[in-house]
């Protein structure tokens, strides 16, 4: 248990009505203790139902748990309590994107970008969504050759070859910007896998600050059923996974080719 989590837990134990549950829930979520974070957040929300940040926290943990309906409901509650809340607009934008509703995704992401113009991940995501909506580009861009229709979920298909290979571009919050991860039964679990693995890049960033090795460029690891490679990309992290039978050197090549693909397609603002 980190010192922060211990200290916040003690504060909450001493005063269960404290709003420190928001920080504690977020710290637990970031440390990967999702179910504990969920209990802390939902109990806190019971006591503080009028706090937008409590609903926002519950929404983000709901995403980590794969409960997208609850996440949407909570972020909508945030916007009721705090119209224009950037985090809720961003969350709803990515959620709409994940669920294929590009029009709503563009609306929410655009509003979030207005609230925080410095967030590169929002700009990248909005570019992706707009690329999937060629007919809805602003008129002032003028007549050009027809833009290729890009389904962000299939962005990396041209560089992926074999069965079981997957590539995902995640933003700095672990949301999927592009790509997908299909299981054998056809479900897209990119959001779940991305949420779990994006924490590794956060940890790498922290480690680099102390080791004097400069910036990290690539992480590769082998697990029982898959080899995973990841690298920083367009304000977030690009992640490639392949069955363990695929040689590790080839997985690295897939990562490099996927990075080129992401930069070519989305890197205009990166």
């Amino acid at each position, binding site marked *: 248990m980190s010192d922060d989590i211990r200290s916040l837990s003690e504060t909450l134990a001493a005063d269960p009505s404290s709003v420190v549950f928001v920080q504690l829930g977020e710290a637990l979520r970031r440390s990967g203790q999702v179910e504990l974070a969920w209990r802390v957040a939902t109990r806190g929300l019971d006591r503080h139902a009028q706090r937008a940040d409590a609903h926002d926290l519950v929404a983000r943990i709901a995403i980590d748990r794969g409960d997208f309906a609850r996440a949407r409901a909570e972020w909508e509650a945030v916007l009721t309590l705090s119209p224009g809340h950037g985090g809720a607009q961003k969350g709803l934008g990515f959620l709409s994107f994940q669920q294929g509703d590009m029009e709503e995704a563009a609306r929410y992401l655009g509003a979030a970008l207005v609230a925080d113009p410095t967030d590169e991940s929002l700009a990248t995501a909005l570019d992706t969504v707009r690329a999937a909506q060629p007919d809805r580009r602003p008129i002032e861009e003028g007549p050009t050759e027809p833009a290729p229709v890009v389904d962000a979920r299939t962005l990396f298909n041209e560089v992926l070859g074999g069965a079981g290979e997957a590539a995902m571009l995640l933003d700095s919050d672990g949301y999927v910007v592009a790509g997908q991860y299909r299981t054998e039964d056809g479900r897209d679990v990119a959001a779940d896998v991305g949420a779990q693995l994006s924490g590794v890049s956060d940890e790498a960033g922290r480690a680099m600050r102390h*080791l004097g090795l400069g910036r990290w460029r690539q992480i590769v*690891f082998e697990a029982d059923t898959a080899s995973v490679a990841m690298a920083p990309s367009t304000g977030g992290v690009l992640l490639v996974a392949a069955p363990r039978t695929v040689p590790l050197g080839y997985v690295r090549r897939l990562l490099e080719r996927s990075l080129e693909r992401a930069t070519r397609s989305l890197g205009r603002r990166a």
Partner: protein
Amino acid sequence: MTSPFSALLSALIRHRGVTGCMVVGEADGKIIDSSLQIGVKGDAFAALTASLYRKARRAAAAAGFGATGFFELDADGGRVCAAGRNDLVIVVVAEARANVGLLRVEMLKALESFA
């Protein structure tokens, strides 16, 4: 004084570009045995690499990929490799010119003795 890991560490440190190698506790990040060139911050590499390896292992398990074996991080200023089993992690710090393929084979072979 020799430890059960002395032979392993002696073999790893002789590889081209390797500047340090350690056997580290995964849970606490503390060095159990090491062979380091002068100037390598063994304690920092041990603690942070063990933490990173632990994070990768847990994330891979949560993502349904099973147990993690070999791990490698490439940075502007060098590489760190790790491989673990039974709460022990072999950590290798190396320059970019190191032959990681060879290190990987040797580290995974050494893990078998940790069973």
